[in-house]
């Protein structure tokens, strides 16, 4: 009996140690694990001229296509800060205003020149009729209340407060 108890305690201790070690490691590498920076994080984050990913919502009414239709310009926002983006290439199906987006590229002269644009969808699933009804009831400003993940900046809360008026 004592041996079993001892093994149980050993196991508990080992798991505790392993858990704490993992937690510390993940906290230490916090900056390397995030998939993208939000516009607000970019205000403090030193990126220089290296390539990185920018994530946020495509601002309403900001999408403009060039005359040849190849270059798309839009603004990415987390409601607190906004960054101009220029992208040459094909956009994913889900790309639309008010929708979450993750773009990879470099910041040149204040404009984010994207090499790749990925659409991000949110955790809400509903039939089109329900979204219509919600829109008519004024719950959603747009057909979507997408917010760019759980950004530690607290942007999601503000984003949702802004959409749910």
């Amino acid at each position, binding site marked *: 009996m004592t041996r*079993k108890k001892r*093994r*149980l305690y050993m*196991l508990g201790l*080992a*798991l505790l140690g*392993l*858990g704490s070690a*993992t937690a510390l490691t*993940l906290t230490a590498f*916090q900056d390397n*694990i*995030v*998939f*993208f*920076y*939000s516009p607000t994080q970019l205000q403090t984050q030193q990126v220089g001229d290296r390539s990185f990913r920018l*994530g946020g919502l495509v601002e309403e009414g900001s999408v403009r296509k060039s005359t040849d239709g190849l270059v798309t310009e839009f603004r990415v926002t987390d409601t607190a800060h906004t960054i101009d983006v220029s992208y040459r290439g094909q*956009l*994913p*199906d*889900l*790309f639309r205003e008010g*929708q979450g987006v*993750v773009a990879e590229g470099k910041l040149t002269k204040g404009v984010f020149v994207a090499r*790749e*644009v*990925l*659409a*991000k*969808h*949110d*955790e*809400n*699933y*509903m*039939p*089109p*009729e*329900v*979204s*219509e009804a919600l829109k008519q009831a004024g719950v959603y400003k747009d*057909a*979507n209340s997408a917010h*760019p*993940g*759980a*950004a*530690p900046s607290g942007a999601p809360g503000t984003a949702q407060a802004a959409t749910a008026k």
Partner: protein
Amino acid sequence: MSWGQSMHRFANPARFLRLSAALLPWSAGAAVILTIVGLYLSLFGSPPDYQQGETVRIMYIHVPAAWMSLFVYTNMAVAAGAGLVWKHPLADLFAKAAAPIGAGFTFVCLVTGSLWGAPMWGTWWVWDARLTSVLILFFLYLGYMALVNAFDDPQRGLRAGNVLLLVGIVNVPIIKFSVDWWNTLHQPASVVKMGGPSIDPTMLLPLLVMAGAFTAYFVAVVLLRLRAEITQRRIQTLRLSAAGEGAQG
């Protein structure tokens, strides 16, 4: 001690064999019925999504597979802990029997996720925290299976495998909360989260039925595999004792 242990070994598996024989047809039947109902609901009995259209139907395979990949691993790790602490032979064998099924679920989750990501996100794969941690889970399953079979003495293989399973358990909460802790391309949870599901009831129903189907499938196959493992052990023991008698006589 060895006598007591061998009695222990035979007493419980015998009861398990009786119990599993009774459970097996029920779980297999439930798996078949729930799969038929679930597939009908997911393909015909549910609406398209307001953003994703018909593509959303990939969810009804992807999400249950992802749940099962975590559920099976957690069960295996608990069994591994019981196997190490209480030396319960069935616990060791359960982990071994469940591993390929869990690996299969994880593989299905990764493949369907990739097929879903291509049209919706615009990419097959990204190295964000959620996708990467699930890939690590898949490698943990494969590593466990390789490790268990890497020893001449099966008992030592199972023990080494148990340790690996317990070390890998840290990955389970990382997978679940990766979408909350870090910025990821993958969206946060829709069903198991604070404030209730953010998925329409007409889409939640097929999802839950499919999850039931996957669970019933897992129970049926793991029982079947465990029975096979136990039978194999018995044959080995019988052979060894027959060889021992032959050498004596």
